[in-house]
């Protein structure tokens, strides 16, 4: 047989919404290139309607996900790490293309992203133990404060760090029981869209993470103003867009995590984890057994 170079099969990149992989309802795509301008793929150019659909999916998933045990959520986040480890080479290639990195540097980004899922898998059942607790009120009351997830969080993924940055902003949001609508890096959305394939096979319920590609500003503006979104992480917004989105977010007093420069290779701390939590304090009278009580 003659040797002919085999033509590879290209992947059609799709959105990840409600656990499914739809195209943009608008039918639009845009060209994604590597750092040298070579064509990589056509990514869906999501519309405002896609963003609204994603919010509906995220809201629908919130009840079960926030009601799951922290242990269960931890198991699932760890499962994401396991699944990613098996696709390490794929993501290394995608990150190398997306960010113009050497294979070794891209692999380091992917390894750090896998370990980040593990880091947050461990936080699911510990965050309440460091930010919650019993309060010694001056009276006969049992008084306990516990963190609860705030709800649906719109996440503008970092524009530069297409994968490690992306994971670093998604994982803390869902670890505590929130659900997320994520806008991928505008220029480099492919690692994010591939992450959807990992999440879909990690026992993560559909709708907990929804991934959109497209123009960040076009999608972020309606999300920041959306009345059924509870919070927004502005990691991927520039200063001007951030200000506009914060104004939009003020309408229903969304919790806002402002953009800041972050070294995603460093240990993340707990800022992003606690940013999307509400604190609930419960009072209950302790009653009295009368004078004396036990002297034992």
């Amino acid at each position, binding site marked *: 047989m003659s040797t002919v170079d085999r033509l590879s099969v290209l992947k059609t990149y799709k959105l990840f919404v409600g656990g499914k992989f739809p195209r943009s309802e608008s039918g639009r795509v845009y060209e994604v290139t590597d750092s040298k301008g070579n064509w990589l793929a056509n990514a869906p150019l999501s519309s405002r309607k896609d963003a609204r659909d994603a919010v509906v999916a995220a809201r629908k998933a919130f009840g079960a996900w926030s009601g799951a045990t922290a242990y269960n959520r931890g198991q699932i986040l760890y499962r994401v790490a396991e699944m990613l480890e098996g696709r390490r080479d794929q993501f290394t290639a995608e990150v190398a293309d997306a960010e113009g990195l050497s294979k070794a540097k891209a692999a380091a980004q992917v390894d750090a992203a896998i370990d980040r899922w593990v880091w947050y898998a461990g936080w*699911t059942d510990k965050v309440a*133990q460091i930010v919650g607790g019993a309060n010694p009120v001056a009276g006969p009351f049992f008084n306990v404060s516990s963190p609860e997830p705030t709800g649906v969080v719109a996440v503008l993924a970092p524009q530069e760090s297409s994968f490690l940055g992306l994971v670093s902003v998604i994982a803390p949001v869902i670890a505590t029981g929130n659900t997320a609508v994520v806008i991928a890096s505008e220029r480099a959305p492919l690692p994010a869209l591939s992450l959807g394939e990992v999440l879909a096979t990690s026992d993560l319920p559909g709708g907990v993470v929804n991934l959109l590609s497209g123009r960040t500003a076009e999608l972020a503006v309606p999300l920041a103003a959306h009345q059924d979104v509870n919070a927004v992480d502005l990691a991927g917004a520039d200063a001007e867009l951030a200000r506009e989105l914060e104004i939009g977010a003020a309408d229903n007093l969304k919790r806002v995590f402002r953009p800041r420069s972050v070294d995603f290779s460093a240990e993340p701390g707990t800022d992003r984890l606690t940013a999307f939590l509400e604190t609930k304090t419960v009072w209950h009278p302790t*009653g009295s*057994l*009368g004078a*004396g009580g*036990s002297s034992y």
Partner: protein
Amino acid sequence: MAFEYAPAPESRSVVEIASSYGLFIDGEFREASDGKVFKSVSPSSEEVLSEVAQASAEDVDAAVKAARKAFEKWSTLPGSERAKYLFRIARIIQERSRELAVLETLDNGKPIRETRDADLPLVAAHFFYYAGWADKLSYAGFGPNPRPLGVAGQVIPWNFPLLMLAWKIAPALAAGNTVVLKPAETTPLSALFFADICRQAGLPKGVVNILTGDGSTGAALVAHEGIDKVAFTGSTAVGKQIARTVAGTDKKLTLELGGKGANIVFDDAPIDQAVEGIVNGIFFNQGQVCCAGSRLLVQESIQDELLDALKRRMSTLRVGDPLDKNTDIGAINSAEQLARITALADSGEAEGAERWAPACELPSHGYWFAPTLFTGVTQAHRIAREEIFGPVLSVLTFRTPAEAVAKANNSQYGLSAGIWTEKGSRMLAVADKLRAGVVWANTFNKFDPTSPFGGYKESGFGREGGRHGLEAYLAPSSPEGERK
């Protein structure tokens, strides 16, 4: 009437037990230095399951040295890498949980329903939980620069062999310590299987060392100069002996000892739920539980109603083959323990309490004791004061909440207590006054890796589980923490 059940035995074929096992030291199995061995017997059949090595003082020394050597690297690994080892262990335990459940039931005598649905899920969860702490120690509230202690010598009991191993090893390793662990003489096998799990997980050699043996091995371990920490779960008498052994040293000590838990039922309690809780409290694991609700304190006005319901429920308990999936109560762990339960139950009768047990056919081989209830018990009776560690419930009555608290606290122990009432403020008021480390309200015998467990008074000190459980394996956070 009692329902007839067809036998529903869990298959033994899932587990392969070798005819003999060595000591697990420095990542390898080896025979005891003096070649001594002892047998592990299945308490439900008296069948010899395997022969295991009896570790000598020389073996203890070798294991401590291996752990000390491994400590250098293990303690300086990034926490995130230690975490990943522990996550691996947790996952392998999940994968092998049916095998381990059957093994534990064979070696311990407890029902497969419990090993499968309680022990093993909790074991895996415990490793999973502490895995997550390994790279988050600075958030745990024990100072900005938490440091491990060094080598931990750990001695565990036979009632929850693998679970007690998990409670000891998971936090120790997460905090950066290395361990030498001695499982109980009558239940050594699951710890030896755990050694194999460490191999599968690629755990560096010497980080976990398993020494099988009797009390002399445990005594040599806690007395060894090369360890920095002693963690013991077992009887109060041995706990006191260990406290004397480590006196004058810098070894950090945590003890989880006996109990005589009061299960307090108020007149407004939901009776059916309370009966289930009482049964669970004293007959779970044949009552061989340090936190068992072994004293039932019932409000006088509902005594007859509650006891009638309790006796009806006890009559439906199925005692027999622990591998049968319908079995509620399995075998007592050893002939020695059976003799102790028998003697204490006899003392109850001799001291004037009224004994009752449902009609119950016990197997002809193995060690068995029918679920038993004593009424007319006074606080002075031995069965109200001493830990029986068997399926024997002592019933006392009270009239007021204050009296219930006084009676509940009238014990050398202070490990657990239960409160049954629909009134939240009463529940909290009583819980507030109880001198016990764990108080269950309208439930009993609930365990979770996130929830600290441990006792007041002579039930020991230190907590296992939760954020609190880390403290036992961390060096003092203040610089002046060293002993003078």
